[in-house]
Structure formats: structure tokens, C-alpha cells
């Protein structure tokens, strides 16, 4: 097949930083005012483009952290060797302008109407929790009774993003942590990387026809998706989004 470039309707627009919240020592949420934003779905992302004084450009994708209808928010983890995240987590000021393109994505999206009452299995590795949080907020917004289990793999409790929100998770939402590096005294939860035994304990039985969303670093996503398929989940019921070795999707 041959292809040629065609001008799409999705273009870069200048967004303004309206609010900022620190989530952990390395993670910050930015609320953006995006002109002409046509609304988004839970699970979608947007692209951010920064242009240096010398014209050098860097582009990154970030999951949208807010539910449909809420102001656009992204949650960014600082990577010390990153080109974009140090600016977004440290240097950016309220009122700063950032180039944004979005919303993007139709695959890693929870569609409550289409997906019906299927129980949700959400699995997050580190900042992979961001698009899953948008799904949880969307569920709450809808007053949905779809049962949800969120398995959140994170190095320590201090690195849990949205901790207070997750602690107050509503009826029908179970949040299960696995703390892979550091556990508080008396911790009785999981304390290892995700494996098939853990997935067998946490995942909804296949007979309930669950729908799984898995987001995180590539090796995490590969492990979880592989385990779920081994447990009998049909591959098309396991939606995946990978953000490589480092960085936020």
C-alpha cells in the first residue's frame, strides 16, 4: 500500500495551565484549559509538544486523568533524564501555555454503554494508573454498579498516585496493592512483582466475562496480559497500553 499525508482535523492548540496538584514527590497533576476541547472518553490520552528557544521540539503522550466532562487533567511522573517531564513537574507555572493535541485513542477506552455490566479488572504498573483513574471517576460519575478490581503495582506506598482517592473508593471497587520494593511494618498485602498466582487470586473468573485494562511499563503489561490469557481471558477482552521502559503513556 502507498500512503500520502492528509491534513486531519486534529491540530495542535495552545492550552493554559489552570491548576497543579502534587500527587507524590515525583508526580504532579496539571489541569489544563484547552480551547475547543470536544470532550474525551475515559482511557484516552493527549500529546504535548514543547518547543525550545532554538526550535528543538519534543513530543510526549500523557493519559487523561479526568473523567469525561471534567476539566482536562494529566498526571505526569518526573523522569530525571526526561526532556518534557521535568518541565511539567517542576518548572511549569500557573498560566503557562503548552501545545496540546487530543483527545487521542479509541482502543484503550472504557465505553460503559457498549461494555455493559462486564466486571472490570484494572491493572496498573506505576503511573499506568492514570487512565484507569479516569475510568474509576467515570464510573462514579455515572453511578454505575459495575464491579471493579484495581490491581496496582507500585514500589512503595509513598509512590501511590491518587492515594486518598483510592482509599475512599466507592462501593463495588476493590483496590489491591502490590508493593514491590518497600512495605510498611505489618504489611500483609502483596509484596512482589505481579505473577500468575497473584493474577489467579485477583482476577475475576473468566465465567463472569470480565473486561481487563492493563497499563504500565512494557514488561509489566506483557506479564499481566500473558497471565490473564493463560487464565483463559480471551485476548480481545484484555486491552493494553504500554509506555516503554520509562515515562508516562
Amino acid at each position: 500500500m502507498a500512503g500520502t499525508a492528509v491534513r486531519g482535523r486534529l491540530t495542535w492548540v495552545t492550552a493554559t495551565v489552570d491548576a497543579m496538584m502534587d500527587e507524590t514527590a515525583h508526580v504532579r497533576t496539571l489541569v489544563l484549559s484547552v480551547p475547543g476541547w470536544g470532550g474525551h472518553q475515559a482511557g484516552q490520552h493527549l500529546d504535548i509538544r514543547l518547543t525550545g528557544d532554538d526550535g528543538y521540539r519534543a513530543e510526549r503522550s500523557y493519559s487523561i486523568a479526568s473523567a469525561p466532562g471534567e476539566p482536562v487533567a494529566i498526571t505526569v511522573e518526573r523522569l530525571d533524564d526526561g526532556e518534557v517531564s521535568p518541565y511539567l513537574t517542576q518548572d511549569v507555572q500557573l498560566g503557562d501555555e503548552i501545545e496540546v493535541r487530543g483527545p487521542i485513542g479509541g482502543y484503550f477506552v472504557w465505553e460503559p454503554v457498549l461494555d455493559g455490566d462486564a466486571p472490570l479488572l484494572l491493572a496498573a504498573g506505576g503511573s499506568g494508573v492514570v487512565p484507569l483513574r479516569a475510568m474509576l471517576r467515570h464510573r462514579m460519575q455515572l453511578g454505575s454498579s459495575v464491579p471493579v478490581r484495581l490491581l496496582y503495582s507500585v514500589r512503595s506506598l509513598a509512590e501511590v498516585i491518587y492515594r486518598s482517592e483510592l482509599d475512599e473508593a466507592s462501593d463495588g471497587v476493590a483496590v489491591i496493592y502490590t508493593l514491590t520494593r518497600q512495605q510498611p511494618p505489618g504489611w500483609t498485602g502483596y509484596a512482589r512483582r505481579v505473577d500468575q498466582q497473584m493474577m489467579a487470586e485477583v482476577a475475576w473468573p473468566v465465567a463472569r466475562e470480565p473486561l481487563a485494562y492493563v497499563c504500565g511499563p512494557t514488561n509489566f503489561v506483557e506479564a499481566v496480559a500473558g497471565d490473564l490469557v493463560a487464565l483463559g481471558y480471551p485476548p480481545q477482552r484484555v486491552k493494553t497500553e504500554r509506555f516503554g521502559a520509562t515515562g508516562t503513556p
Partner: protein
Amino acid sequence: MEALEDGVLDGNAIGGLLIELFGTEMTTAVGVCGSCGTVGQVAEMAVYQAKMGTVARCRVCDNVLMVFVEIRGITCVDLRVLASLS
């Protein structure tokens, strides 16, 4: 399907680029590998991003399906081994 190595992205990562090029959401589009015949959604392809451009490969046979290179502000697209995309 082969497991992806650490650091490799998937087709979600090129969603914005594809909307810009094709004018519509493409991560749910179904591509057929012209080499091994694997049928899969764009979101499930293996994506390698580098300064010089972006490459999408088949998850099964690793053949190059799509190449995107930006030259002087124009994105060149090569859908070389993609038998179909719809």
C-alpha cells in the same frame, strides 16, 4: 503473539500521529500483515520511536508494517508490508 521487550511501545503511542495523517482515529483500525497474514488492531502493533522516525512492526513475525519519517515538516508514510488497513 511474541512478548514485547522492555521499552517497546504499542500502537496507542502513534494515535495522534495517525489522526493527523489520516484524519480519523486509527488505533482500532485492523491491519493485515502482508508477510505472515496476522490480523490485528493498530493499538496492538509493536512501535519503535526514534529521533529519525517511527516504525510499527507485526507482533508475530516482526516485519515492518509502517514507517513514518518527518522531513522538513512533511511526514512521509510508508505502509510497506501492510496488506490492508481498514
